């Protein structure tokens, strides 16, 4: 018996020796903590990659990028509040960031005075990145130009069931669009009537994500749709049969933003990154190559878009919209399925 035990011990030793010894030491070339930055971003690669690359080249800071959906990343930030995994949340509509205010630290970026005041947070909890007006799009082959000029036209009987609209519970931009629509068309009895009319107008059909709106309009499955300026411009530039209008009744221009995460491990580098995102170079890159609208004061010849001043705007209340989100979404869900809203 003793012999067997001894043999077993020896065998275990031998096997352990056989397995050990693999794996080398950590490789050289890794940067110190003072030269690192971790980003959570919901931007597409075409947006964040040139900016991250240029930031690295200019500052010598190594950037680690973790991508994901806005809400998924914000949830993660809240979960990691005790030991943050990232330094900056890069991207996400300000309405979404508003809901997670307690996860961020205020920072007034350099050149803050050069930003348009309507895009800045009162407490500088977030730093705006780009302005994204809500626009209407239509298929140029199926709808006469001038036929669609504003929100009211969208509710015309011939468009019933042919409007592409993404689920506002999934898409942040779609929710913004819904609130904008309510505000633009007037909110008798708290908007309930307009909301019911629009829901009925969709015939119970809404799209799974904001990306599908343009595809539906371009393919002719829908005659018109509601989306963001950036998305529409990109499709138009790609040569699709789509045209864009700013609604005559007024639209909203809610920015997306970046925010400094509370107790970030690389806070200084995070601040440098936030400064960089609103720098003239990056903001020009947005307008010139990414079809986005700068949040800086307009100026220079680079402006190719309709100036913001020429676009009718409604008075959009970010904090208010964020506050009534749950109630609005619930009513929307009821109206869409053809039922009365819960009292």
């Amino acid at each position, binding site marked *: *018996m003793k*012999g*067997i035990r*001894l*043999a077993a011990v*020896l*065998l275990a030793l*031998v*096997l352990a*020796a*056989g397995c050990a*010894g*693999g*794996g*080398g*030491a*950590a*490789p*050289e*070339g*890794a*940067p110190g903590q003072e030269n*690192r930055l971790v980003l959570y971003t919901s931007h597409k690669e075409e947006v964040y*990659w*040139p900016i991250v*690359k*240029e930031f*690295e*080249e*200019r500052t010598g800071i*190594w*950037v*680690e990028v973790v991508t994901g959906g806005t809400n998924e990343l914000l949830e993660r930030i809240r979960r990691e509040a005790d030991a943050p995994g990232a330094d900056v949340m890069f991207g996400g509509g300000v309405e979404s960031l508003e809901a997670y205010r307690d996860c961020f630290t205020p920072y007034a970026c350099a050149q803050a005075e050069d930003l348009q005041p309507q895009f800045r947070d009162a407490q500088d909890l977030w730093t705006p990145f780009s302005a994204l007006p809500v626009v209407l799009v239509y298929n140029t082959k199926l709808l006469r130009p001038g036929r669609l000029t504003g929100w009211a036209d969208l509710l015309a009987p011939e468009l019933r069931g042919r409007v592409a609209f993404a689920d506002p519970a999934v898409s942040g931009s779609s929710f913004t669009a819904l609130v904008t629509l309510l505000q633009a068309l007037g909110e008798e009895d708290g908007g309930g009537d307009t909301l019911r009319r629009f829901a009925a107008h969709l015939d119970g059909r809404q799209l799974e994500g904001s990306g599908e709106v343009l595809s539906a309009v371009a393919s002719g499955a829908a005659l018109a749709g509601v989306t963001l300026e950036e998305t529409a411009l990109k499709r138009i530039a790609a040569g699709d049969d789509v045209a864009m209008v700013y609604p005559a009744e007024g639209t909203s221009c809610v920015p997306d933003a970046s925010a400094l995460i509370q107790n970030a491990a690389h806070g200084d580098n995070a601040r440098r990154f936030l400064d960089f995102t609103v720098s*003239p*170079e990056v903001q020009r*890159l947005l307008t010139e190559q990414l079809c986005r609208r700068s949040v800086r004061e307009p100026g220079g010849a680079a402006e190719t878009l309709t100036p913001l001043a020429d676009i009718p705007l409604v008075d959009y209340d970010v904090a208010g919209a964020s506050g009534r989100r749950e109630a609005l979404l619930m009513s929307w869900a009821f109206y869409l399925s053809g039922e009365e809203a819960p009292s």
Partner: protein
Amino acid sequence: MKRHSFQTRLFWGFLVASLVPLLLCSAMLLQIFRLRMTNEARRGMEERLETAAQALDAAFDAFAQTAARLQGNPIIAGALAGGGVEDTLVYNELFSATAQARSWASFDLYDLQGLWRYSTRQIPQAERLPTDWGALFAAAGPGEPPVFTACEDVTDAASPLLQGAVLLADGRGRPAGYLLVSLYDSHFRQLLAGTHGAQSDLLLLSRYWRPVYCEQPSLAEELAPRLRSRLLAGQSLEGDSEAFLYAQAHHAASGLWLVLQQPQVFTRATRRLLYTVSLGCAVICVAISILMSWKLSRQMFRPIQRLHRVIGEVERDNLDVSVPAERDDELGQLARRFNGMVSALKQNREALIDNQRELNEAQIRMLQAQLNPHFLCNTLDTMKWISKINKVPQVALMSTDLADILRFCISPDEFVSLRREAAILRRYIEIQRIRMSGAFSFELELPRDLEDCLVPKMILQPIVENAILHGLDGVEDGVVAVTARETAGMLEITVTDNGRGLPPDMASGRYRRPGGEERKHLGLYNVDTILTKHYGGDCGLYLAAGPGGRGAAVTALLPARREEEQAC
């Protein structure tokens, strides 16, 4: 605890003694083999990295020289400043300055606004480059070697993978434009061809470990982020996978990192092969252990089993057995000693049987002598009365004596007191006196304290008869004397006569039984046998010459036991 058989214990012993060194040896070999092969591979990889780095050195030195030659060139500076210089002149300057380096990169000249002006390629990469972004923004100052930055898409062979820019100044040190060095996929291919083996993949990474170039761009796109995250996590580049080895080197002139990926030399398959061989050896060890323990235990077991069987025979009382003891080892010795023990046992038993038979024969003879004695007693009684009636007193006396002797003889007691024995002896003497007409005298000297001593019955009569019939044969005034004494717990009863002395065939000393089937001195023989059988070899009859050299003295020696002792 269960006791294992000898064979099992042998088996485990063999197994441990063979398997443990084997496994230790295998593991050590495995380890040494692995370390050696890995080190060998690493050395090879470092050499190849060195070769690649040298190739890069040559190219980037040439780029720096080109930049230095164009720096302060009045024709170039003038042309970039828009001074209306003829294009051919500018191109002459550009091509002569880039002659050394043109096969490794393409060179473009941009003016200070970032507008493209001249190129060694047919088509410029971009008509206009931003001066506040990317390569031109990062351009090195006049007189410095170009600063290189990685471009975005590794898989795009049509756009440059690496760009370096340097600000060109005119003769007076004022900036005039930019020199842009662009390295395309084809350039890298040419530069690095043959610097690394076919087995391995060379990966060029930027300062921040972003992919720059790889022979297989898709590999770079997939591998580089993984390597980067391992680097940032402080792990080894190998990670958990055992499939590849990595070696890296930094190329200072370009700021690039060279990473060489090579399949593990000591792969899982190799390891599995070695494990299989070890396992095979282990199986052989087990088989040999089984065989050896079986053989050895059989060799030891066969003699032990034979011994076992023979002992069983002995237990069943068969002593005519022996163990074959053909071997000279310890087991052979054991067998021989066992055989000796059995033969000693056998002799002992034969002696015992002989003894028993003699005793039985004496008893049978006594029984024969007792045949129908009652009839004789009654007859003698009748004779006594008839002789009394007929007034023949001698016959009456003889009949009475004979009847008493006879009765004494057939009594069931085996031992009698010396007193009774002596009384019967007197009866016998009376008969003999009548028979021999009083030709001898008889003396009996019996100390009173010995009268209670117990003796086997009828032991004195044969001795006395022997003395009368043989000793006093033809002797005048014969005397037979019986004396008894006790010496050291032994009773000595001596019958002395003054007759003819011991016959020639009887020596003095311990009585020796006559050999063969001879029946001489049957009386003495019987008495001696009775005494010996009852009391052991030292008791019995002793012969000596009589007092004064005449006659003989026969002494019966036996333990002095009293009646009461017997009763106890």
